[in-house]
């Protein structure tokens, strides 16, 4: 199957094309085609993963374009890292598509939704399989396009339209960095191929300063896609898309692409300590920064979005402190529990038609299946012992500790506390207390509960692939045979870190319980309502406003200036050019009088001109 791994992304593309053509006739049965296609992809991915465990990396390429001396290739590669992502992406996509069948029921553009989902899945799987940077960049942009289309799915809503635009533009800023990095790498190494680039870096062919610059530019691409500070503000807005989309793209897959990019080009980063530190610091800062905003938001999906940003920061922190395994591990577990949380949130929104958590409450008894599943997700993200999030978070904390960056270590610790607090604030406000709105419908349909159930099982169990007790299967799988990756499969740290992490997480839950259920502690205990900190947090540190007044205003001023140049200088030039062309055109058309004798004259005149010039120059014009 490894030789045929290229089929995995093409199957969803095929379904997407089919739906594009026949969508109108198929209506809601479009879902079956989409689900079936991605299910096949998932099964193939699992087979590839199983085969890859005992086999070396498989790579196949064809020459796509020859320019001068350089052969530009296209192909695919089956590495340890991308088999894991193949399975994760196809699984989550499959579950989300099953879920969407119930969630999107009655939607007018139902088949279009599945067309987009198939297209996105194709792009994401293609991104993962790419063996070189150029191909990765193509798919990177296609993924962005898929995300744009899906965020703007309700394009008649102004917010959705704005959010889609914002997401596209803000990620483009990062993409520009990525593109420059790719060009620089090509310039310096003459190749787009990962292996060749890593070899020339290993041989020291690129100077240290240039390497740092390239790594930072690559990281800029990752910052945009993964919603890291300062390019994070599109992600909460992207919640305007349908909830299944938020679960698929803005929790599990696309936003993880930035982390994947850093992981896949890890040898470039690890060659530059400045770049590594930048990654770690940005990651750590984003983690605590986004977690603090999540404390006070009241829209269920936005809280989860900030939580995603914060968790992605965690992953970056792990990668930046050389915790390669830890970063990937958290990427996988996070995909499962965060998708679960989003899908459960979707199920709640489906039932009561509001996203404001202050208008929810007492749902535990009403939604017998969604509630425990949400609880599992919440426990897992909080890092409660024995669930998947606990192990991956522990791995990150250990790698930060081993790396010796104690400030970042304690930031990560505090973030763990904040995380469990805001997640349980969410949980208690939604599920306990008195109901504040009427429940419109009962439990969601089976097609929505089944995917949540599967994700629930994974959120509990997926941590056991890398534990300090049973062995680090994941780390060994990732590191084995990868000669460019100079990191240990597992970092050994002091045992108290695990205990401390558990204590921090549980105390976060306890605090949330005391404030929101027992109400023994006032809500204003820590931060007074209306206080400076509170308003700052509610307004997300005024980042959007800051951007508006600095970048936005500057750009607008610049735009005004440019528009004058455009209107008068360029416009004038344009007017002259188009005028000339247009008059040339009409002159030509006038000459075309329909009289054949004119045509004959033109021929003889043409011949005469040629011959006369030839005669005058003596046949030698050069």
């Amino acid at each position, binding site marked *: 199957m490894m030789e045929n791994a290229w089929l995995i992304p093409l199957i969803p593309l095929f379904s997407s094309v089919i739906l594009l053509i026949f969508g109108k006739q198929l209506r809601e049965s479009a879902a079956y085609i989409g689900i079936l296609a991605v299910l096949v992809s998932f099964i193939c991915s699992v087979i590839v993963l199983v085969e890859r465990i005992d086999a070396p990396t498989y790579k196949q390429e064809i020459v796509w374009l020859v320019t001068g001396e350089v052969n530009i290739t296209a192909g695919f590669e089956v590495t340890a890292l991308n088999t894991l992502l193949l399975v994760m992406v196809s699984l989550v996509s499959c579950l989300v598509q099953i879920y969407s069948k119930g969630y999107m029921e009655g939607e007018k553009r139902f088949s279009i939704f599945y067309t987009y989902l198939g297209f996105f899945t194709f792009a994401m799987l293609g991104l993962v399989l790419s063996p070189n940077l150029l191909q990765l960049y193509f798919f990177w942009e296609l993924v962005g396009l898929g995300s744009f289309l899906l965020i703007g799915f309700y394009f008649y809503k102004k917010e959705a339209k704005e959010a889609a635009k914002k997401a596209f533009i803000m990620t483009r800023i990062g993409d520009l960095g990525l593109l420059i990095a790719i060009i620089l790498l090509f310039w310096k190494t003459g190749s787009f191929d990962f292996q060749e680039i890593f070899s020339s870096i290993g041989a020291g062919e690129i100077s240290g300063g240039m390497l740092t610059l390239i790594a930072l530019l690559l990281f800029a691409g990752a910052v945009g896609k993964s919603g890291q500070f300062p390019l994070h503000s599109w992600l909460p807005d992207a919640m305007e898309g349908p909830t299944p989309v938020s679960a698929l793209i803005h929790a599990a897959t696309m936003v993880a692409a930035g982390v994947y990019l850093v992981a896949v080009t890890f040898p470039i980063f690890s060659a530059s300590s400045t770049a590594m530190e930048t990654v770690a610091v940005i990651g750590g800062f984003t983690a605590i920064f986004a977690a603090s905003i999540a404390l006070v938001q009241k829209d269920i999906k936005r809280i989860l979005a900030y939580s995603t940003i914060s968790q992605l920061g965690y992953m970056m922190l792990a990668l930046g402190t050389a915790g390669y395994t830890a970063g990937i591990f958290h990427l996988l577990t996070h995909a499962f529990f965060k998708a679960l949380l989003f899908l459960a949130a979707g199920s709640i929104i489906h039932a009561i038609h509001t996203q404001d958590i202050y208008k929810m409450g007492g749902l535990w008894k009403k939604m017998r299946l969604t509630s425990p599943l949400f609880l599992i997700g919440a426990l897992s993200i909080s890092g409660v012992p024995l669930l998947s999030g606990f192990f991956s978070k522990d791995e990150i904390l250990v790698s930060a500790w081993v790396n010796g960056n104690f400030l970042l270590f304690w930031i990560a610790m505090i973030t763990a506390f904040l995380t469990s607090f805001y997640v349980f604030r969410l949980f208690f406000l939604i599920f306990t207390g008195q109901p504040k709105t009427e429940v419109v419908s009962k439990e969601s349909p089976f097609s929505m509960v089944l995917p949540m159930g599967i994700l629930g099982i994974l959120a509990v169990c997926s941590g056991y692939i890398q534990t300090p007790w049973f062995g680090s299967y994941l780390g060994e799988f990732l590191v084995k045979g990868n000669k460019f990756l100079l990191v240990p499969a597992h970092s050994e740290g002091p045992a108290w870190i695990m205990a401390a992490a558990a204590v921090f997480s549980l105390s976060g839950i306890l605090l949330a319980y005391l404030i929101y259920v027992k109400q023994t502690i006032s809500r204003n205990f820590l931060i007074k309502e209306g206080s400076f900190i509170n308003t700052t947090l509610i307004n997300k540190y005024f980042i959007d406003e800051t951007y508006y007044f600095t970048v936005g205003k500057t750009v607008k001023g610049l735009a005004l200036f440019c528009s004058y140049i455009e209107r008068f200088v360029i416009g004038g030039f344009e007017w002259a050019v188009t005028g000339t062309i247009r008059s040339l055109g009409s002159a030509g058309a006038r000459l075309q009088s329909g009289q*054949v004798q004119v*045509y004959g004259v033109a021929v003889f005149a043409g*011949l005469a001109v040629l011959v006369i010039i*030839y005669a005058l120059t003596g*046949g030698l014009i050069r």
Partner: protein
Amino acid sequence: MDLQTMLNYHWEAMIPEFIILGTTVLLTLLDLFWPPYIKRRRLAWIGLIGILLSLLSLLAVLPIEVVSILDDSFRLDSFAKAFKMLLLVGAAFVMLLAESYEPKEGMKEQRGEFYYLFLTALLGAMIMTSSGDLITLFIGLELLSISSYILAGIRKHHTASNEAAMKYVISGGISTAITLFGMSYLYGLTGSTNLKAMSIIMKETVDTQFLYLFGLAFFMVLVGLSFKIASAPFHMWAPDVYQGAPIPVTAFLSVVSKTAGFAIILRILLSLYREVWGDAVGAFSFFESNSIYIAFLAGITMIIGNVVALRQRNLKRLFAYSSIAHAGYLLVAFATLGGQYFLFDTFWFYLLAYLFMNLGAFAVIQVVSGNTEQEGIDMLTGLYQRSPWLAVAMGISILSLAGIPGTAGFIAKVSIFLGAFAVDPGFYVLAAIMAGTTVISYIYYFGILVQLFLRSSIIQTKPKVPAGINILVAVCVLMTILFGLAPNIALDFFHQHFGDLLDF
């Protein structure tokens, strides 16, 4: 020459031509003796089978070495093979178009002729690619021309068709006169009509007076033959004739006839002038010192084709100008040949890509116009709602004609564009004109796309698509995309079977 020598010739090399000739005769006889109630459209299928058999036999003779029959009056070298392949594929497609061509009136009694005249024209074109002698080349040229004149006017009772034929004949006459005048110079200077014998004499000529006369002959032959490829200054007939002629004939003129025109230009001018001196001391070759004139013609052709196309509202007329523009792009490749750089694969690939994208577009135009006499751009309005498949196919063909990445047209155009830089000294101005006019061409090509996809249609009738046309369109679109994504398939085939035309 006795019978024995005659029989010793490798006549099997001419099997493709014999098959076409045989099919033509068969069709003529059938048309004559078939009772009137048998539909003459069936002849098209027989003709198509003939063309396909001929194509098969061409594939069978691909491996054989250069064959020369009757002192080079017939030559089967890799040049001939490469061009015949294009001609046969193009003619097969045109035959499919012609089969389902059903105008309102004026085609009843001439159905039979309609089909076998395509075959005689094809035969002429094939001879044009495959002869090493001026006389036979000229006969091929005239066979093609005369068949085409009749084809353009095949709708006897249709005024536009008659006018087109008339203009075509007169322009053709002028073209023939100029070509022959040029050829007579060449014959007078060398005393032979055999290209090989002539080129030996010509490359040994050092006298500047003689070289000067060679130059004059060069221009006359080039201008005379530029009639066939519809390039400046001999392009003005094209819009009128393309517009008046029946759609399959228009398609034939813009693809098959143009390919044959390029074949004869390359055949005569390259084999004669490739090694001629450009000046008295032999510092330059002829092409090196004179390619500037070809470049000039190429530039003018691109500008006229693209700029005047902007003002056209009639689709067939628009495509006439578009085809003039494409002849201009191909002349860029001809100009950059410049003697030592023989970018023949570029040339061939462009013609191949052009064949698919242009015939794909013409097929859609024919189907959509149906039996109405509508030919305006507005007939495509909202086609996407009426028939998504046709609209997408047309869209892809148009994108390829415009040279958008991902299509064969892009690869073809880029290779010519890069070729203009590859030669030394480079044709930078010409490349700039090519880029600039390509941008201009976007205006009218995208105008068509706008009509196809973004306007809603007033007409609600769905065009009826015959199976033959469906296959034709599907093949064209498929090939356009395939060669756009993997041009090496075609280029590898070319290099494998035709080499670098060393036996030219």
